[in-house]
């Protein structure tokens, strides 16, 4: 009955962190990863990735705007969430969310995008008409100074913002890992490696997402895919993936070797309730296969068409793997009893506030936002050198 096996404390039957809390670290992970890819161009001077730079920034923004929604929706009292800003509890990792989020959104992403697009915004505010003109005029903040000197200043400040943005992206996602890793009550979560593993898997998922988006959108625009760009991105994806995999294995080996009081229970869970999502999806399909695919590209000389197909397959598998990892952490951590004597079952709703449909909607929503952002702020440089009067933005 109730999907309970063995003995669990009577209050443990219900899982209070649902699929939306799975989605939340997944989405923030995409943000952090996309931003790190952008910083490769800006701070580490990886010129090859430049074609995807602006797309990476807009992707990060689109997902960041959605990131608080799953949290908000899972709260028992969403209307009270401003309390997080008004009376943040200093000892709570979760209380830092509001501030880290706002900092990252406003001081890093929006500021950097604004600096990068300022010249375009000013030009667009002069070439467009109607509500668009008004919108762009607001975005200029009333300053149409695009003198070479001001753009040089923007560039320098933008570099500093990106530099600050890298640790900020790490903090944004690292603290999500800390929320789980710092709970001593839950041995499945409790690990100092948790924030690190979260950051690296975030980079993997975010870079793969931008790679997929870049290839998809470029194909849709019927433009040639910039092969050095995708090759370089895939190379970074491969190396960071190796690091991520090593860290996850380190965590696993440590747990198996240490075999503390919770080991028997967790081991049994991984071999039963979590077998499909942990062993099959996360480890095999979502990690080993894409690493192998990306590795083959690194050591062989395959034609461009094959490489592109491999990137698409690997990119999709990475998303499956990282989502499964978030699932296994969040849901897995609530399936076993803290008495280590039994298990419960997660029953996902379909149309409820925290159900499957809402989760799907929240996954698609950032793509819609990205589409709007790309309409407003075209990320493709070749289109902007000709600011025609009454120009319709790219495609």
């Amino acid at each position, binding site marked *: 009955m109730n999907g309970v096996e063995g003995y669990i404390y009577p209050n443990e039957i219900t899982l209070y962190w649902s699929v939306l809390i799975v989605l939340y670290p997944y989405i923030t992970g995409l943000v952090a990863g996309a931003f790190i890819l952008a910083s490769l161009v800006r701070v580490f001077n990886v010129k090859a990735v430049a074609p995807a730079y602006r797309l990476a920034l807009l992707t990060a923004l689109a997902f960041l705007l959605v990131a608080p929604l799953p949290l908000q929706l899972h709260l028992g009292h969403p209307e009270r969430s401003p309390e997080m800003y008004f009376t943040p509890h200093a000892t709570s990792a979760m209380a830092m969310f509001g501030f880290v989020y706002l900092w990252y959104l406003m001081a890093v992403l929006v500021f950097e995008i604004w600096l990068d697009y300022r010249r375009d915004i000013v030009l667009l505010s002069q070439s467009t008409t109607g509500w668009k003109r008004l919108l762009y005029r607001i975005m200029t903040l009333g300053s149409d100074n695009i003198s070479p000197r001001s753009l040089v200043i923007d560039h320098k400040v933008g570099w500093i913002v990106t530099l600050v943005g890298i640790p900020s992206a790490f903090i944004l996602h690292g603290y999500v890992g800390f929320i789980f890793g710092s709970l001593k009550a839950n041995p499945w979560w409790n690990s100092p490696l948790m924030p690190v593993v979260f950051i690296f898997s975030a980079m993997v998922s975010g870079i793969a997402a931008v790679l997929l988006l870049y290839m998809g959108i470029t194909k849709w625009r019927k433009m040639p895919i910039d092969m050095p760009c995708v090759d370089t991105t895939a190379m970074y994806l491969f190396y960071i993936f190796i690091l991520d995999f090593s860290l996850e294995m380190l965590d696993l080996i440590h747990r198996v070797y240490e075999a503390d009081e919770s080991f028997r229970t967790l081991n049994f869970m991984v071999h039963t309730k979590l077998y499909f999502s942990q062993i099959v999806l996360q480890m095999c399909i979502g990690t080993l296969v894409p690493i192998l695919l990306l590795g083959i590209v690194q050591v062989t000389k395959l034609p461009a068409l094959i490489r592109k197909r491999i990137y698409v397959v690997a990119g999709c598998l990475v998303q499956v793997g990282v989502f499964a990892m978030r699932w296994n952490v969040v849901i897995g*951590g609530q399936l076993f009893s803290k008495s280590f004597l039994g298990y419960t079952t997660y029953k996902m709703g379909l149309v409820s506030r925290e159900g499957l449909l809402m989760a799907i909607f929240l996954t698609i929503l950032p793509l819609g936002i990205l589409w709007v952002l790309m309409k407003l702020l075209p990320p493709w440089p070749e289109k902007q050198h000709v600011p025609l009067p009454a120009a319709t933005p790219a495609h």
Partner: protein
Amino acid sequence: MNLDRRHFLVMLPAAAIAWKYVLAGTPEASPNYTMTDHWWSMLIDIPKCIGCGNCVRACAAENDVPEGHFRTWVERYLVTDWHMESPEVISPDGGKEGFPAAAEEANGKYFFVPKLCNHCTNSPCTQVCPVGATFITPDGVVLVDQTYCLGCAYCVQACPYGCRYIHPEKKVADKCTLCYHRITKGLTTACCENCPTGARQLVDLKDPSDPIHAFLKTHYVQVLKPQMATGAKVFYNELDGSVR
């Protein structure tokens, strides 16, 4: 009998006044109660527990505990021989209606373990609350401000003992208050009041005349999951090592 009746009639107004006094006001309003004079906790005397479920029912009636959730519950352990790592534990409906009769186990022992919030001094649940909606009072009781709680359930995840839940209607964290509305009026908790064998006793560690001090001097007690270092204040007399 006549005398008793007269006695009853004489006593009635006095009782009503006493009762009004009991019902009166907040701890701040009550001159007899100073928060800093108390440090509340509980003693559970395992050999005395008969698993009747009176405490669970009393708690539910006193605190309007929602069906299927528990501020206190009773577990029945069966440990066979030396197999301390795999006890057989049951708690049907939290022990609310007692336990099924058990047959003699030749090679094992049975015992009951009442559970409740440990009102930890270094409570992991209050530590993680993002807004300060749960806290430990100056008299040592971990409470939830249900008008301020977001219902994020982080505290539920952080409690090692499974003592918290999200109230299905109020959508906020809910838990044992150690009957704060009773103990601040000089009463004991509903569970202690209704325990027929005295297996549960409210204790005030700051009160030098509390029998707990004599008890601790002569008994070997334990708290649950001491490795969690939560500063748990619910002391268990003769707690078996298999209990988790």
